[in-house]
């Protein structure tokens, strides 16, 4: 990574941290957007607390979907689960045509308002990219490699842990990254069903017709998403490098 890239990332991160901890420092930039002496900086809660709960719900949901999705993908690629493989492939394709907001909206009447429907939507929708990529990663391990591992006397469990999963790791990580990015967006919409998150700022702005709120909410969410996306991308590249593979092999 060039020095410029490092500086750029550090500056973006610093900007985000300073903005959510000391938003009043930036009030001057938002004042021109307000009318009738409306507040320029979100005043119905701390930006820091909203950011933390936003990140928390995305993290927990992604963790849960990663565990289940990877386990399911391992299952359908073992001999015992082969019969489920064709269907699970089409299900992933079909599932991704569901907009995340539909999942969120349908969960509300079933479990009520708040964090729960948001968590369910993030969890269910987050499964798809991770499952799809884990499946792709595991099925792309060449039969020759597996044959060699078997020849070395590895049992099925060792082959999975020491050969298949490490080889599939960069692709799995790409799936997790996609899932996290979708979840960050869905969690923002989660504020319409009263989940604590940064969407609150945007929605408060829309309701009170305060463009300053809308813009700062949008900027914080956008900056957060771009930084997380970038950070996970670095992890992916590190995993690929450990396998000695060029970067463009991970799609």
């Amino acid at each position, binding site marked *: 990574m060039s020095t410029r890239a490092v500086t750029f990332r550090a500056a973006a991160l610093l900007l985000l941290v300073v903005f959510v901890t000391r938003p009043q420092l930036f009030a001057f930039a938002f004042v021109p957007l307000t009318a009738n002496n409306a507040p320029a900086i979100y005043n119905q809660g701390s930006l820091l607390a909203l950011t933390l709960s936003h990140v928390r719900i995305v993290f927990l949901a992604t963790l849960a979907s990663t565990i289940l999705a990877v386990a399911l993908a391992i299952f359908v690629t073992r001999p015992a689960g082969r019969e489920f493989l064709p269907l699970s492939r089409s299900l992933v394709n079909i599932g991704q045509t*569901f*907009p995340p*907001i539909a999942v969120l909206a349908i969960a509300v009447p079933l479990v009520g308002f708040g964090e729960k429907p948001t968590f369910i939507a993030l969890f269910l929708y987050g499964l798809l990219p991770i499952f799809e990529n884990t499946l792709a990663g595991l099925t792309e391990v060449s039969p020759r490699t597996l044959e060699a591992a078997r020849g070395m006397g590895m049992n099925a469990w060792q082959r999975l842990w020491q050969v298949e999963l490490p080889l599939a790791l960069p692709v799995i990580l790409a799936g997790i990254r996609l899932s996290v990015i979708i979840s960050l967006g869905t969690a923002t919409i989660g504020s319409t069903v009263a989940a604590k998150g940064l969407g609150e700022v945007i929605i408060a702005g829309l309701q009170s017709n305060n463009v300053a709120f809308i813009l700062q909410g*949008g900027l914080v969410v956008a900056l957060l998403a771009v930084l997380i996306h970038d950070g996970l991308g670095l992890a992916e590249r590190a995993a690929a490098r450990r396998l000695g593979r060029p970067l463009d092999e991970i799609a």
Partner: protein
Amino acid sequence: MPTLRPTLHLDRLGSVIAGLIGLALVASPFVTYRANRIVSGEGRLLFDALPPAGAVGTILVVIGVALCAALAHRPLVRLAAASLGLCVIFPAVGVSAGFVTPVGNTFARVSPAIGFWLLALAFALLAADALTRLRLGPWGRLAALSIAAGMLALLLLSGAWSDLSLMKEYANRAESFWREGRQHLWLAFGSMGAACLVGLPLGLASHRVPALRAALLQGLSIVQTIPSIALFGILIAPLGYLAANVPLAAALGIRGIGAAPAFIALFLYSLLPVVANTMAGLSQVPADVTEAARGMGLSRRQRLVQIELPLAFPVILAGIRIVLVQNLGLATIAALIGGGGFGTFVFQGIGQTAIDLVLLGALPTVALSFAAAIILDAIIDLTRRGGHDRD
């Protein structure tokens, strides 16, 4: 090989589906009855939800499908069983709505309950698995989609569902349903069209100029990373400024809140798949093919139009498929900033905790994305195949 065994051989997937069907039949209500639109309701098991003869018939069919799922192995048989099941429970839930609602009561609402959804899910899984195993070609998939669409249209037009709460919500706002539907399609297809007009030349330019490539892809992928409502929010400020200070913009209907920021955001999201796939498609045209075309005396323009673009077309279409499915889903969020579309009903429904209103917005969106994905996948297969025939 299962076909060689004369004895019963349980299909694993089928057994899971049969279990799901059993659970739906025994333990879950088929419909929910509510005294009015907003109060919480009480569930009715399938047996209490239909006239006795109808209930027995439906239950027998459902059990038959479960047995088929667990024991039959030929995909065609399983597909037939799943289709029969779907053809029975969908009208049945409509009949049930009429049966459960007390005569003359116009406030009562009947909605499909968890049991119905589980049965529908189980049958749909069985059908999807059978269709996957049949490995239908593109025409076969299009035919299956048209049959499904035809059955759905028949169900809706025949009035078989008119007693269901979902259709009552629709009847109350039929006019705005179609207006929002048109708006939804305009947002999704219009922004896709604009993205193609801009993205194809951009993709072509960055294929030719490597320096442009990295910067463009990086910029567009940052845009793609920004969550939709944040991007809407970021666009509202400059558009509002534009509307307040440039009379022409205001005259064109550009306002800070409304369809304009949604349209622009969808357009920006659409650019990455179009540009990246145009580039990928063009770069996979084999060098010797373009070399041969040059040798035949084709000009640069002729090579592009007659050789490179046709060969890159399936990959470009794959990008358009991503865009269309993504836009049809994202257009739902436009309602949050006053941009209209089916999302209007979703957000109204969330506000009123009226699940049927949510479904009125969500189901058409899902159906549209689903149909768009199948149709474009089939077209991509057809263009690929066409390319191979010519080789």
